[in-house]
């Protein structure tokens, strides 16, 4: 496996290690689930559940059952625009508290406007650069650096 793949599928483990009472990992891709299951076994995590589901489809979970969501959604491509917003909307539906997520900095204003119009409050917690390796023939460079925001979407109380 290429080096960057070993670092993935650890988000839920990080949550569990930092003291979450219980973690549910939602993932649709079978390969990703295999990676995740392997990591859970390696780290001996016993309070992480995994559910295979498509979060862009109608939800398998009741509303507001989670306290918080932490996620690294797909950024969206030519054929898959807006998928990052679908993830955000779903996370807000399932959580009663704040949602933490990664989004392209170029979408910051759009996301902020959209969330605030629904009564949420957006904070950019960190700015970072993600290295996206060449995945498709149409990408000319070996890897690209993308500006990414780590944001918190909180409910106004």
């Amino acid at each position: 496996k290429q080096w960057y793949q070993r670092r993935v599928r650890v988000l839920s483990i990080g949550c569990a290690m930092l003291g979450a009472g219980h973690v549910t990992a939602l993932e649709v891709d079978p390969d990703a689930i295999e990676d995740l299951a392997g990591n859970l076994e390696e780290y001996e995590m016993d309070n992480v559940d995994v559910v295979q589901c498509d979060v862009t489809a109608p939800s398998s979970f009741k509303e507001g059952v989670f306290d918080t969501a932490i996620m690294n959604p797909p950024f969206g491509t030519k054929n898959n625009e807006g998928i990052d917003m679908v993830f955000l909307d779903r996370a807000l539906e399932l959580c009663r508290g704040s949602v933490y997520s990664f989004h392209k900095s170029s979408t910051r204003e759009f996301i902020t406007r959209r969330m605030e119009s629904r009564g949420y409050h957006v904070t950019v917690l960190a700015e970072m650069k993600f290295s996206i390796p060449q995945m498709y023939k149409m990408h000319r460079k070996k890897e690209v650096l993308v500006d990414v925001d780590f944001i918190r979407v909180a409910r106004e109380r």
Partner: protein
Amino acid sequence: AVVSTQSTGHNMMKSHCKGVTNGFPLKLSSTKVDVKEVEFNADFITRMLDRLEWGALVEAARQLGVGDSLPEMAPEEGGDEELLRSVHHVLLEVEVTEGELECPETGRRFPIRNGIPDMRLNEEE
């Protein structure tokens, strides 16, 4: 198995089949159940009590063969340590490794393999 479906998941999940009006709770059936030890956290269990659907929890416990450990009716206030530990046991220590979740209205079955339920539906469903 390390990854597993516990009653916590069952309590939070519902059917998303087309046209279903009330998809909760899913019917749980198991062919393989594991029991493991998980550290007891009284605070966490107490907080969970508030948001648990007690009836569904008791039903899941019955399916897992530990139905006797929980009272039929939800505890009125919090719960003593014995109750919290029973809830902890059902929620976090008894796990379905192989089994099914079934939609209460359509009968559509979602498999649980290696402790992971597969909730994916086809386009038409």
